[in-house]
């Protein structure tokens, strides 16, 4: 198993590996990888695949969110199953007519904010992170006094599904909390997509994205702080997207107990 045994060439670069998360200094056995590295890669890929294909346990997710004191509504996109979802991103972005009608029936009048929790490309990210993030974000909602629609728990959803949901709920802004396309070392990453004035047909350039929300990435508290900042700006300016640059850095510097973090940029593309 070890690259150190006779026949396996020791790799002189292993100590450089701490300079980068890239897989360097792996060693080699002839032209191949040591068994250890083949298995490590295999495990990481297996976890990413499972993240994509594990069905969302929408009831459990809704129960966890309800326990925080939120109302919830379940909704399904127009993609009937995972295989269709992966081939037809257009269906994952669309509500069924029945779904849109059900949402409209539940919404009672204009609200400031609609929150949507969707499986996207990693149900695992939602299972492990959605309730925790909402717990961190709830005090920001309370402090700002935003009127909130029931939290929508969506299956087979892509980012733009939030546009139809936000419109049906008559929300001034929608935030899609969605499982991101898993990387080999990040199967559990949530993305937060803010869209002001949600309606079907919004482009990705009209959204702001906070990415990499996961234990080894951006913490729930920091993500909540950034989302609060972006939402406040979006409501003040009446827009979101490329014309709303993330300037939460200086605000974070002034906020006690929160370290500085990287940029939260306009959404470049639909990752889910």
């Amino acid at each position: 198993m070890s690259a150190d045994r006779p026949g396996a060439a020791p790799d002189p670069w292993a100590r450089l590996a701490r300079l980068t998360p890239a897989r360097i200094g792996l060693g080699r056995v002839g032209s191949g990888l040591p068994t250890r590295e083949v298995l490590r890669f295999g495990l990481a890929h297996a976890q990413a695949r499972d993240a994509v294909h594990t069905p969302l346990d929408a009831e459990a997710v809704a129960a966890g969110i309800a326990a925080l004191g939120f109302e919830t509504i379940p909704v399904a996109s127009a993609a009937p199953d995972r295989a269709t979802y992966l081939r037809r991103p257009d269906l994952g972005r669309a509500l069924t007519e029945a779904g849109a009608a059900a949402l409209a029936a539940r919404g009672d009048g204009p609200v400031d904010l609609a929150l949507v929790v969707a499986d996207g490309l990693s149900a695992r990210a939602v299972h492990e992170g959605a309730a925790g993030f909402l717990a961190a974000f709830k005090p920001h909602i309370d402090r700002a006094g935003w009127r909130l629609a029931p939290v929508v728990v969506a299956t087979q959803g892509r980012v733009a599904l939030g546009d139809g949901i936000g419109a049906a709920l008559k929300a001034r802004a929608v935030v899609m909390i969605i499982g991101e396309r898993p990387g080999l070392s990040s199967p559990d990453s949530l993305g937060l997509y803010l869209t002001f004035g949600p309606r079907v047909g919004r482009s990705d350039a009209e959204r702001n994205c906070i990415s990499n929300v996961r234990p080894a990435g951006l913490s729930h508290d920091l993500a909540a702080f950034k989302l609060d900042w972006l939402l406040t700006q979006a409501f003040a300016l009446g827009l979101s997207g490329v014309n709303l640059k993330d300037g939460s850095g200086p605000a974070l510097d002034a906020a006690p107990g929160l370290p500085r973090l990287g940029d939260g940029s306009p959404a470049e593309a639909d990752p889910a």
Partner: protein
Amino acid sequence: MAYRHVVGPRTHVFADLATLMAKATPVRSGDRLAGIAAESAEEEVAARWCLAEVPLREILARPLIPYEADDVTRLVLDTHDAAAFAEIAPLTVGDFREFLLTAPSETLARIAPGVTPEIAAAVCKLMRNQDLILVARKCRVVTRFRNTIGLPGRLAVRLQPNHPTDDAAGITASILDGLSYGCGDAVIGLNPASDSVSTLSGLLHLFDDLIRRLEIPTQGCILTHVTTTIEAMNRGLPVDLVFQSIAGTQGANAGFGVTLPILKEAHEAALALKRGTVGDNCMYFETGQGSALSAGQHHGIDQQTLEARAYAVARPFRPLLVNTVVGFIGPEYLYDGKEIIRAGLEDHFCGKLMGVPLGVDVCYTNHAEADQNDMDTLLTLLGAAGCNFIMGVPGADDVMLNYQSTSFHDSLYLREVLGLKRAPEFEAWLARIGLTDADGALLPEGPSARLIAAAPGLARSGLAA
């Protein structure tokens, strides 16, 4: 004009050439997403029968996207080499397949300027995977900047040292790791996380310094938008190659923020720097099936044909490197390993047939139905097909772009199995510094201390000790 093919009691009708080409394409998810794929297995083969009987002259005479509407069509027709085409002009698409199977390399090189992307795409649809390999292997497209890429029996590797925050020490560590496996002859090419010119400046100097200090016969490239690279050249920064993603329609290129005049401006600026030592091929393009549909600029044309049109965009700029990033775009365009493998072979074939120096980023994302075994298969097939270059990503895991490609080790595998050598100048350098033996095989104890000591950032930070 409608096309018809009769199969027993059924007559299959195809409204026009674009429809016929789309239906004749081996079915893939992207064409289904666009609503243009064959609707039955029989229809797909009926379209191929029908396409086989279409004369090449007719394809030339019927642009899939009108001349007036699209500058890629204008480029293809305005620069078409009628003399080169004359040799194949009497043929149908089916004849052309048979012509290609028997033509020697010299003939293929001679006709390349007469092959339009639509002609390449049409014949591609009639070819099995083994045809795509056999013919592409005979097409040699050799390019030069500081070394020679594309010679028979050789395979180059782009060393891809991406880092999530463009950290100089982290990037340098990945470069040294890749060099120690004998990778980097195609280019040392980084996808930066940031597109600011100040970040770019630091990275360009880092690459230039490393290449000079180690006297590596290769070229560096920071894969940022062409307009940013133009700005870098205007500021006097050390730019070897100009990079740009391109696609097969004017509208899709507009989606990338690029036009043919911008590419021309960048090409002329890079030529003027005269930084190549053995040649002046100084452009690097990336492409991939599905990009035009993704941008909503596909004109109802199938994605494989549009991909070939992207090579027509590249061709006049005499690029050093062009690669399809075949599985990067996701399963809505190429669903699984089978579709990715087919597309990789198609792209490589079409590029080579058109005289474009094709390499392939053999890759997939975690939501595609594919894994490293599929990549091993495609890699091996491309090695047999004489692919100019592949990617070398540490451990095949790109930690910045979040996808899986081929690794430094994968290139060693391919060299061992198929006996493929590196670019000759680079191979000689590796032997000179004592990393490889005379046959190009890695020695057990490489000159690690010397490589590390020569790396500027690492030396300064004391890591060379």
